[in-house]
């Protein structure tokens, strides 16, 4: 799959020496990472290794202690940057979905297009309905999030992030609440997105997913990048100790 | 202006059995002691220095005189401070009588007893020197003015009925606030009883700039049954002491004591009649 794409010139997103700590605990240490345009980079790692934190930092939801986050040529970690202009171009799906409970599914989705991007409501709703149809929830458009199952909420969160047509998507455990069939659907959705030119950073525990969609797989271990490689190389010929250990554990779990 | 009214007819209980009035030995609230109440703060010129027990001020002096008359010398008098609402409520009263410029009316006598009147005040308008009321000569000149008075007083009734202002009068909780409003230019004038008016203009309460505009003609103040504003001592409804207190007031009036005290403590003359 990667072979079909021409090698990208400048990465859309480049992390340089990123560091983030919570109180006394260092969560991310010296993260350096490139995500070329149109690429799909999958982050794997043990629970608590810092995947969600990394995605939050890229979306400027957490302030980093040190390092650069170069997005489309600009260092967005700089406090002089207006984060809103950046976030509008980056979509994020949260591990806990974070839907707005006081809005219906449709309102959740059209909020940003109408308020931030100034699209016509009718047009935004049409786009939202199309997104909902793609994730199989058109009939739930008028529901409140609390009236949806876990998987349904997750799909709404995906639709909400995608409807903004961001340049970079951050997915945090995007398929954790989905049944296998839906995983397939979301997977093909992501593939479509990639073909449409979307750049993606996906944190996941689904190794099958990593194998099938990733251009590169990066292993996060104790807050640092242990290894980054194309999926074949990562899964079949891991170089680092951490990756070998991780993959060994996965094989034991029968997950690859 | 009149001081002590001539007839004690305003108090219907006056004709009751007086044989129970044994001097110095009456069914008082605290046996052997006469408990007299007034509000806190107690205002000049009725009291002086917010201390009713010093015998100074008209009402303080009247209270001691009534007590003396009833056989309670000054050392057998105890003062308590009772706010207006408590004095008029149906709760058991913690005093034998209350002296605080209570105007006698039939309506009020449904819930409390009054002695015969110990003083009758006339109502006057007070303004500021150089203020909006400086050229007022007649009641008719006042109808367009912004006037105020204290709630629950005959002043307010006199203002309403005697002046018939074109805009509703300003109503204040206390005369202090009425004065503050006058000073701040929120009202053109306030209606108070004559002794209070003299006190206001005589003290520095109005910064020496007070002006007694004139009396509201008696009769113009008519509120139902009373022509002027007779003050009575207030007692618990059905109190056994009402006739005795009235008897004492009557005796003081007859002896000219009330007039003498009024002459000593209250300035009562000198306001033009409008």
């Amino acid at each position: 799959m990667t072979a079909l794409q021409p090698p990208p010139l400048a990465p859309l997103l480049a992390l340089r020496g990123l560091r983030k700590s919570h109180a006394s605990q260092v969560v991310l240490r010296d993260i350096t990472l490139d995500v070329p345009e149109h690429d799909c980079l999958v982050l794997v790692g043990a629970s608590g290794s810092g995947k969600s934190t990394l995605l939050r930092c890229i979306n400027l939801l957490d302030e980093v202690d040190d390092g650069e986050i170069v997005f489309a040529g600009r260092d967005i970690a700089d406090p002089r940057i207006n984060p809103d202009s950046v976030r509008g171009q980056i979509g994020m799906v949260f591990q806990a979905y974070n839907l707005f409970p006081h809005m219906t599914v449709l309102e959740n989705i059209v909020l940003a297009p109408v308020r931030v991007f100034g699209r016509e409501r009718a047009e935004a709703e049409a786009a939202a309905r199309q997104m909902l149809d793609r994730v199989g929830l058109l009939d739930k458009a008028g529901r409140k999030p609390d009236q949806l199952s876990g998987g349904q909420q997750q799909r709404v969160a995906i639709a909400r992030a995608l409807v903004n047509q961001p340049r970079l998507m951050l997915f945090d455990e995007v398929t954790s609440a989905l049944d296998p069939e839906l995983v397939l659907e979301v997977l093909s959705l992501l593939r479509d997105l990639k073909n449409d030119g979307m750049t993606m950073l996906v944190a996941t525990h689904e190794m099958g997913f990593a194998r099938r969609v990733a251009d590169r797989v990066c292993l996060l271990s104790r807050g640092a990048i242990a290894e980054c490689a194309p999926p074949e190389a990562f899964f079949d010929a891991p170089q680092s100790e951490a990756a070998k250990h991780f993959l060994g554990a996965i094989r034991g779990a029968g997950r690859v | 202006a009149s001081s002590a009214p001539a007839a004690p007819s305003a108090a219907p209980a006056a004709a009751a059995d007086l044989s129970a009035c044994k001097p110095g030995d009456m069914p008082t609230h605290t046996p052997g002691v006469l408990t007299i109440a007034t509000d806190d703060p107690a205002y000049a010129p009725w009291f002086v220095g917010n201390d009713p027990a010093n015998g100074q001020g008209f009402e303080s002096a009247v209270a001691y005189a009534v007590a003396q008359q009833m056989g309670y010398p000054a050392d057998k008098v105890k003062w308590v401070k009772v706010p207006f609402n408590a004095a008029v409520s149906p709760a058991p009263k913690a005093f034998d009588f209350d002296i605080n410029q209570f105007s006698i009316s039939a309506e009020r006598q449904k819930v409390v007893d009054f002695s015969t009147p110990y003083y009758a005040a006339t109502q006057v308008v007070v303004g500021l020197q150089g203020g909006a009321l400086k050229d007022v000569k007649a009641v008719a000149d006042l109808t367009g003015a912004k006037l105020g008075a204290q709630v629950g007083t005959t002043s307010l009734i006199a203002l309403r009925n005697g002046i018939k202002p074109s805009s509703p009068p300003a109503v204040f909780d206390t005369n202090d606030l009425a004065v503050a409003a006058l000073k701040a230019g929120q009202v053109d004038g306030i209606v108070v009883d004559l002794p209070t008016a003299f006190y206001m203009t005589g003290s520095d309460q109005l910064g020496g700039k007070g002006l007694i505009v004139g009396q509201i003609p008696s009769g113009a103040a008519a509120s139902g049954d009373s022509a002027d504003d007779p003050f009575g001592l207030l007692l618990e409804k059905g109190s056994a002491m009402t006739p005795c207190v009235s008897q004492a007031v009557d005796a003081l009036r007859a002896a000219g004591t009330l007039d003498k005290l009024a002459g000593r403590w209250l300035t009562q003359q000198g306001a033009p009649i409008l």
Partner: protein
Amino acid sequence: MTSDAPQDSWQPSKRAQERTAWRRARARRSALVAGVSTLAVIAILVALVLATPGWPLVRDSFFDWRYGLQVLPDIARGLMVNVAIMLGCGAVIVVLGLLIAWCRTLPGAVFFPLRALAAAYTDLFRGLPLILLLLLLGFGVPGLRLAWLPSSGLFWGCVALVLTYSAYVAEVFRAGIESVHPSQRAAARSLGLSHSLTMRCVVVPQAARRVMPPLLNDLVSLQKDSGLISVLGVTYDAVLQARIASAESFNLTPYVVAGLLFVLLTIPMTRLTDWLARRQGWTAAGGAL
């Protein structure tokens, strides 16, 4: 991808019917028990009161319905004043309170001064007794005799109410805003919404519903306190009307009349806001758990 179970022609089984019947019966029984015991308590209290030696005097003082009816028109007119002030000031208060709460919840070190100012405002005006503000503004400001300042006592009275109550309402809104989980804010910001859009579209709507009852508290209490403007001698609110009437007659019935009118007025307000709050969002009272 998935779809829900189709509708069917389900008839409750006998067991389900029996359960429903049992639940209904239990609810009925509890309503009956509560109703009867409440009535009994009230009846006993009333009987006790009626039998007391002081009752006739208390009745004449507080429950003289003939007199009450007589003063009713005046007091009702006074109530209109309360309502008018409440509505006029209420709107300003809610907007101002929201603004202050907003300032207090601005993020970052840059906004520290604004937060501090908002906090100082709240501290000052919540702490000051309303009566002082009324006197200071109602008598003090016109006393300065500045021609270009409004000198209406009503105006300054309303300003005093607005200052005091906006401080209260700001605290209510702040509590509401802080009760919205930060992940909601993160989600909104991640969609590109600015801080103020996030507040307007995501945080405040969720907060607003949660703060309805305490907000209504403040409006109800504003409605009653609006009468305090009458210390300035500018309005005849319901309580002042009651005071005038009762001071004239030494009869406290007018207060009772005013009190009942206030209660009658607040009940529909309460039901309305409850309904508004419940229409959207989850609700707990009477829920399943």
